């Protein structure tokens, strides 16, 4: 083999020039601010993806509430107020929680795979920058997009639900002053015995009339019969008894969500979106492609988690406990309906079918975040570019 002799002159001119790698810590696993900023730009310029994120996180709640506002303004007797406590809980637990996770996961899957599929990963590796830094730059970049977007949608929901809340509390079809204590409700029931007796749900034995109808006959409450006359004192006593029975339910009904509930709920759905993004990022980096990863994330959120939250399978109970969706449901703020229709420990939907402590739920969530991040980073550092 003939070897090529080095040219001293040609080697000379730039031989003093050299690497600044030691100064820019190129081998460090920590990403730079510029890497994060440009990564945000790369994701933000994906118009289709951004449109989907905006539609789901902001558009759907905004359109839903706008329609309700208009309908209530046009026909207030037919359509109730746009906001209020019930609308808040339904929108947050029913829409923003589930769909926020899915769009965040889609963003994560995109961030985790596009460099590979679009051929940029190779260019980036050739810069000498640590592959781990390339991976970790995506996490703050993605969160910088998804967190404000979820916050914007949630702020709209909170604003409408508070400022367009009903003026009176409707409990069992009866307008009741909100925020009464047990004594207050009993006192109010004593003053409005007919509304309470005929309107509130109750469990017997109570046998009082609701009033006298247009034909002059006594109207009896459902399930009662056989009396024709009743004293005012009896009517009031039964009204108080019914109010006492219903206080537990009444105490969970509000005109609009409290400040604390809104704060807790906001943090809860932000955490859910962050989990969706980080898990999606790790999964897509592991697989090296977006479509299958997105499908798997949707299956996890729409199929597996609801199934496992509705059924406690004895032999799979620990697997069920290991699902991040169920763990998140356990951290749900009190006062919200259970997400997925089951499994929520903290919500108003009753006890969970799959019991786990808050500590276990937190551990499951941390394990998912750390585990998927580690898997994605590992694959990124080992993958052929």
């Amino acid at each position, binding site marked *: *083999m*003939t*070897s*090529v*002799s*080095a*040219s*001293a*002159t*040609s*080697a*000379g*001119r*730039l*031989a*003093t*020039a*050299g*690497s*600044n*790698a*030691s*100064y*820019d810590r*190129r*081998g460090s696993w920590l990403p*730079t601010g*510029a*890497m994060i*900023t*440009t*990564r945000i*730009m*790369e994701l933000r*310029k*994906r*118009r289709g993806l951004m449109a989907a994120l905006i539609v789901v996180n902001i558009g759907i709640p905004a359109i839903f509430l706008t329609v309700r506002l208009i309908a209530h303004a046009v026909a207030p007797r037919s359509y109730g107020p746009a906001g209020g406590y019930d609308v808040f809980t339904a929108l947050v637990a029913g829409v923003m929680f589930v769909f926020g996770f899915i769009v965040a996961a889609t963003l994560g899957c995109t961030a985790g795979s*596009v460099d590979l599929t*679009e*051929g*940029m990963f*190779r*260019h*980036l*590796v*050739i*810069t*000498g*920058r*640590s592959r781990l830094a*390339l991976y970790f730059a995506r996490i703050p970049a993605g969160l910088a997009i998804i967190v404000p977007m979820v916050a914007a949608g949630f702020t709209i929901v909170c604003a409408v639900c508070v400022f367009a809340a009903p003026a009176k509390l409707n409990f069992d079809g009866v307008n009741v002053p909100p925020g009464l204590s047990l004594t207050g409700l009993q006192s109010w029931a004593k003053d409005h015995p007919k509304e309470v007796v005929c309107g509130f749900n109750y469990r017997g034995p109570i046998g009082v009339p609701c009033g006298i109808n247009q034909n002059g006959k006594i109207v009896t409450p459902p399930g009662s019969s056989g009396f024709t006359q009743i004293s005012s004192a009896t009517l009031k006593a039964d009204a108080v008894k019914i109010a006492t029975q219903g206080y537990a339910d009444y105490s969970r009904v509000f005109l609009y969500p409290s400040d604390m509930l809104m704060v807790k709920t906001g943090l809860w759905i932000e955490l859910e979106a962050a989990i969706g993004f980080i898990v999606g990022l790790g999964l897509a980096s592991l697989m090296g492609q977006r479509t299958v990863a997105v499908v798997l994330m949707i299956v996890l959120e729409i199929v597996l988690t609801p199934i496992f939250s509705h059924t406690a399978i004895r032999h799979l109970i620990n697997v069920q406990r290991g699902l991040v969706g169920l763990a998140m449901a356990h951290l749900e703020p009190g006062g919200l309906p259970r997400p997925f229709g089951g499994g929520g420990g903290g919500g108003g939907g009753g006890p969970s079918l799959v019991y786990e402590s808050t500590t276990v739920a937190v551990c499951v969530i941390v394990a998912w975040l750390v585990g998927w991040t580690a898997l994605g980073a590992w694959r990124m550092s080992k993958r*052929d*570019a």
Partner: protein
Amino acid sequence: MLDETPDAHFADGPWAVETHGLTKRFGDNVAVNDVELLVPRGCAFGYLGPNGAGKTTLIRVLLGLTHADAGTMSLLGYPVPRQRDRALARVGAIVDEPRFHGHLTGRQNLQILAAARERAARDRIEASLERVGMMHRADDRVSKYSMGMRQRLGVAACLLGDPQLLILDEPMNGLDPAGMHEMRDMIQTLVAEGRTVMLSSHLLDEVERTCDAVAIVDHGKVIRQGPIAELLAGAATKVHVGCSSPERAQSILAATALGAQVDLETAGLSIHLAAGTGRDTIAEINRLLVEDGIAVYQLQEVQVSLESWFLQVTSRLGESE
């Protein structure tokens, strides 16, 4: 204009690229086979081989895009992969077809790549675009770029790091004749600045025009390397003879012990002499023909091209196998 005198330390050593026993396997297929490669600094170096010879795989191994199974290597004097970050800080490369984020503009793609490099790289974006003649399309989306424009953007990406070493994989691919000419000029300018350009190609004519030295790779193994002039000096010589009676001249020369292959042509003979044959042999041919009464009108030694030499080398390999 790009920085020409960046200040920092640089590993010593005469070689921009140095490999010893470098091997890369894909299952049973040995894509890079015990490669010993020495690329001197400050020259244009061609890495030649037929399709599937392992050119791109070697480049991928050098750049850390895939791992080597055996052997050692260094870039700009830094051992790779141990000091990969230091080595690649002053290396620019295009591997395979240059691809970018199609939804971003050329400038935005460069911003992403500059962000992964040192801070000064961000200040070189405009100069890099200017240098490759892409300023007028810098704010267009890459999805609208032609192959040649993406190739230029790839070179601009290489220049962001003010590289000492550029590794270009098939840089002429997709370029029209004018683009190839510009690329050739650019490579020569980069070399004139003291940078090293290592390019892989199967376009032998382009390599011959552009490069100072080459290595020939076949079946993953480097079979020859050196300055082009030295390599061609050792190639078989071709002599064209114009004479009065070509058939008789052919039979005369075939009967001698010159060991030459003599082919009949329309206006004379084409004689292929073995590598290392001296000019005395050409004089001997002339003497033999004249002594037998054949009028010699023309006796011309034809310069061996890199392409014909490459074919000689690779066909010789084929014969040995």
